[in-house]
């Protein structure tokens, strides 16, 4: 109908850049916090699990708990934070949405992209720190995990599309989503290894997409192996499909956002 109703690369880039500036670069320490905050969380978890619970990773291949946790923790943080931030992106940009005609799906997508990009910088920094502290990382496999991270980004995009459009109508999403994400975090083998689970639970765990992401990242970066699995194939089909469904869902409502903001 109108040129502005389509995806617009220049505008999208502006949105992402603006988001990054707003979230991370506005205050001088913003960028430092980006790395400090997960580092602090990581050390809390590391302390609680290695010192108090004496958790051991049966299949860590001798890398120790902290690197085992860190490899999975950053991508999870990127994922969960981008979903949480993006879910409110329509309501947060009400002024823009109700005044200017543009493809509003760019808002959650830009928020996810900006958050993801920044956390990936943090991820790289952490990997370097780990390597300096003596963890043997398979750097070559870093290239191989890029598509895996892209897939994770896509998954975040899909969920953000569902959540942000629904939140316009059901404001409760803002309250429901954070505990749900916490639940998902503990239901994913991030703090622990799937190997310690009883068989009945492990079967259920395989339906959690995060299990595949976390497992693939670990085996690639720590173990130096990247095999094709059925689960990987399913993800390769399912995640893009979910994005398409998310877009469809979003566009069903996007023309009516203005009525409900």
């Amino acid at each position: 109908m109108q040129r502005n109703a389509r995806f617009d690369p220049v505008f999208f880039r502006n949105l992402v850049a603006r988001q990054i500036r707003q979230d991370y670069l506005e205050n001088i320490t913003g960028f430092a916090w980006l790395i400090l905050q997960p580092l602090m969380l990581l050390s809390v978890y590391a302390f609680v699990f290695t010192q108090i619970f004496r958790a051991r990773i049966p299949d860590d291949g001798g890398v120790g708990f902290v690197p085992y946790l860190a490899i999975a923790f950053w991508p999870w943080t990127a994922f969960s934070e981008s979903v949480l931030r993006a879910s409110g992106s329509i309501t947060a940009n009400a002024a823009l949405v109700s005044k200017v005609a543009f493809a509003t799906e760019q808002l959650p997508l830009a928020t996810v992209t900006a958050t993801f990009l920044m956390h990936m910088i943090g991820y790289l920094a952490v990997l370097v720190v780990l390597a300096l502290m003596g963890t043997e990382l398979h750097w070559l496999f870093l290239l191989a995990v890029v598509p895996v991270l892209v897939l994770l980004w896509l998954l975040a995009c899909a969920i953000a599309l569902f959540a942000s459009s629904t939140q316009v109508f059901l404001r409760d999403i803002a309250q429901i989503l954070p505990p749900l994400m916490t639940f998902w975090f503990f239901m994913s083998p991030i703090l622990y290894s799937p190997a310690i689970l009883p068989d009945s639970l492990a079967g259920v765990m395989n339906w959690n997409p995060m299990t595949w992401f976390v497992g693939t990242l670990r085996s690639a970066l720590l173990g130096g192996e990247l095999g094709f699995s059925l689960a990987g194939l399913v993800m390769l089909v399912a995640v893009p499909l979910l994005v398409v469904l998310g877009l469809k869902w979003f566009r069903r409502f996007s023309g009516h956002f203005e009525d409900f903001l």
Partner: protein
Amino acid sequence: MRPLAQLQGVGKVYPRVHHPRERLRAFGSLLAGKPPREGAHVLSDIDLEVRQGESLGIIGENGAGKSTLLKILTGVIRPTTGTVSLAARTAALLELGAGFQPDFSGLDNIRMKASLLGIGRRELEARLDDILSFADIGEYIYEPVKHYSSGMVVRLGFAVVAASDPELLITDEVLAVGDESFQKKCVRWIDRFLDGGGTLLLVSHSMYLVNKLCRNAMWLHDGRVRACGESHAVTQEYLAWHESRDQEESRSRDRVSGDNGHYRVETLTLGQNGDRPLEGVLDKSVHELPVGDDLVAELVLRSPDGRTPVGMFGIVRADETAVYGVSSERAPTAAEALGDGLFRYRIRFPELALLPGRYRVRGHALDPEGLRVCDTAECELRVTGQSHELGMVRLQHQWQPED
């Protein structure tokens, strides 16, 4: 000339969203693919066509649906019924707030707005100086927009829009915010824009601007098109309606003294020579007349039974001192029947003798017998100019001895 924008049978219903349950229901019906049809009917049955080079003013009271119409036109919201087609290559909407994000600096917002208007990054670099000098807000450009005055926001918005070289310019009541010199700048720009073949859609409460900038005007009333046509005619009709409504309000106070209101004043309008409107520059409800000019007053009366009511004109000073009154009973001409029970009286006061000051011109509807006043309407009149005489009226006089 191809139509740049076209609306056909457009209607808009704002669903009720106050209660969470209502939101949930709306959510459900949207999910099922049915837009909610219950709620506030903001617009109904709007047909509109804007052709290239045209200038259309949209007028109407607050809440008449003007802004909603523009939002539908620009694609910000989807109409509930009807179709919209926008063929303009570039259409720029300029309104209060301009879609700026309050937390970001003016410069950031320029970038944002420019990319929304389809200005590329390199193009923007080239035009940035023009934009900044047009906006003329100095160092404020680096401050967050939330620290701007409303005038500065509009300056910035207009500057970006002007730089985007739109094919269709849509402005929603923005010119009223800027100061005098910026308003003039904008009006000059729009004039040049129109001369260059640009197309304008202007929402404004200033009939002066609508008349000045727009060839045609559309009057929206309660979400429907009440009148559409040549802008002078439409704005006149609109103003007359406003006046009669104001009187309606004041009359409803006066009329407590029983039912004597069979014959009503429909409109009372004041004009000058050649029916030039006497709209005041500052306050639209006060008519202005240079001292010594002709005054033409027109009174349209409604008769419920088809009999011709008697019309009466009167002038009082602002403090209610009666100056002059005249009834149609002894008039050499009869009322002009307009059909539908309407009758028109016109009176002309050549070289009106009132001295500068504030007056009220009243029109009365009397029963056909001329026995009682059934209805009254009044217009405020300010006679402008300078005079060294005292009193209300300039009387014919000659100083003696004559030379």
